[in-house]
């Protein structure tokens, strides 16, 4: 078990942003027959998704709105933010990283280090560990983690997966607390890297043609579009991930009663229900955001926390166990305390960054 220990750092606030554009059954039935939509909605319980592509919104835009709003709400001196980590595969540009653009847009100082991390559904847990580790080796007062994705744009329009993936961005601010201690398990299995993959457009196969091919799942897709072995993901989620959560609780000498909230990556309700049943978790401890927002990739753990926070405001502080799992394959488990006053409701935004589309003639 790859165990990481951090101390002296805690989460000071979380805020999520989603695109205003919303799609539900009515929209889905324009592309798929009613019976197919019924099957997907019945098993996933994803009733709606929010998509940024119609407003030209990128993951960076959603992350920016979440972070800008959070920093204003917490009245943070932005010159004191020394670390910015942006987690996504849906970057604004091939180069530079989106974290560079966000540094500009958020008005962060040149004394803030910035970096992108390529992760999807395990991205919150991986990102949290990275920021906390950086904080421990720096004198920075604050660290900012932004997790965001617009995965729907890489899915074939004939693939039912396009009914499940929603766009979102989340900002998580880290600050100092001498008493805070966290343990995180991070795991990966590159042997299963093809389980969830966009095979073309990377440097391995930079400019494949756009021919649509019928894949083993019967879906027509190009190499630029996501392939997901659904049953492989199901097996991984309900075996490897559940085993890691059990191992984490054994290692930390904790059990279900020690946690107020279990925040899981919001893949779909079929998977989450199986995890809950295997771990014997009561429903009131498992917040859900996917009914309205779908699978929001690396943002889904903060989305679940923000979507469910009104259920926990009777306590000033909650103890959370979080588990993210997905592309890589990668997965992780962590736990932390949260001040419920600094967990904000999900906001909708139409904001984007049109000046980010560059004109070569002007460069």
């Amino acid at each position, binding site marked *: 078990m790859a165990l990481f220990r951090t101390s002296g750092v805690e989460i000071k606030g979380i805020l999520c942003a989603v695109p205003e554009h919303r799609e539900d059954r009515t929209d889905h039935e324009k592309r798929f027959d009613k*019976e197919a939509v019924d*099957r997907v909605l019945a*098993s996933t319980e994803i009733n709606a998704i929010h998509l940024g592509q119609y407003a030209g919104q990128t993951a960076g835009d959603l992350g920016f709105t979440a972070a800008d709003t959070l920093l204003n709400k917490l009245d943070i001196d932005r010159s004191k933010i020394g670390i910015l980590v942006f987690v996504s595969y849906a970057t604004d540009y091939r180069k530079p990283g989106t974290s560079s653009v966000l540094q500009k847009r958020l008005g962060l100082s040149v004394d803030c280090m910035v970096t992108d991390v390529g992760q999807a559904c395990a991205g919150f847990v991986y990102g949290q560990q990275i920021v906390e580790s950086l904080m421990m080796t720096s004198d920075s007062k604050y660290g900012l983690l932004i997790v965001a994705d617009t995965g729907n744009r890489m899915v074939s329009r004939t693939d039912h997966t396009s009914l499940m993936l929603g766009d979102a961005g989340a900002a998580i601010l880290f600050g100092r607390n001498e008493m805070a201690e966290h343990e995180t398990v991070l795991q990966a299995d590159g042997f299963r890297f093809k389980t969830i993959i966009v095979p073309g457009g990377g440097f391995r196969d930079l400019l494949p043609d756009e021919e649509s091919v019928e894949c083993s799942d019967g879906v027509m897709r190009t190499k630029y579009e996501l392939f997901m072995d*659904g*049953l492989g993901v*199901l097996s991984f989620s309900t075996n490897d991930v559940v085993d890691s959560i059990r191992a984490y609780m054994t290692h930390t000498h904790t059990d279900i009663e020690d946690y107020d909230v279990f925040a899981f990556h919001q893949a779909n309700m079929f998977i989450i229900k199986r995890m809950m*049943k295997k771990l014997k978790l009561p429903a009131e401890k498992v917040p859900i955001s996917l009914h309205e927002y779908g699978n929001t990739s690396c943002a889904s753990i903060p989305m679940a926390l923000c979507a469910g926070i009104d259920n926990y405001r009777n306590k000033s502080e909650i103890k959370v166990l979080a588990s993210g799992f997905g592309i890589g394959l990668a997965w992780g488990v962590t736990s932390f305390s949260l001040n419920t006053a600094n967990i904000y409701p999900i906001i909708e935004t139409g904001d984007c960054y049109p000046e980010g589309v560059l004109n070569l003639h002007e460069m």
Partner: protein
Amino acid sequence: MSNLAKYKKTLYDVLAIPEETDCSSLERGVSQNWDSVGHIALISALEEAFDVMFEIEDLLSFKTFDQGIEILKKYGIMFED
């Protein structure tokens, strides 16, 4: 309703196939709508109908009508001959 009738009805409803279809010929990846999404929907519906939760190995090995019956029997579901 007998368990066999309940099982068949679940297949008909989830896979959206006519009830005169010969169920013994149904096969995942071959029959209409029994793709990976259809399979998950079918598993969900069978688990609800029979109040069971399939182990992942059984869920993955369930590919035909007859296999489904044998798997359900493992979970204590009786089928009249």
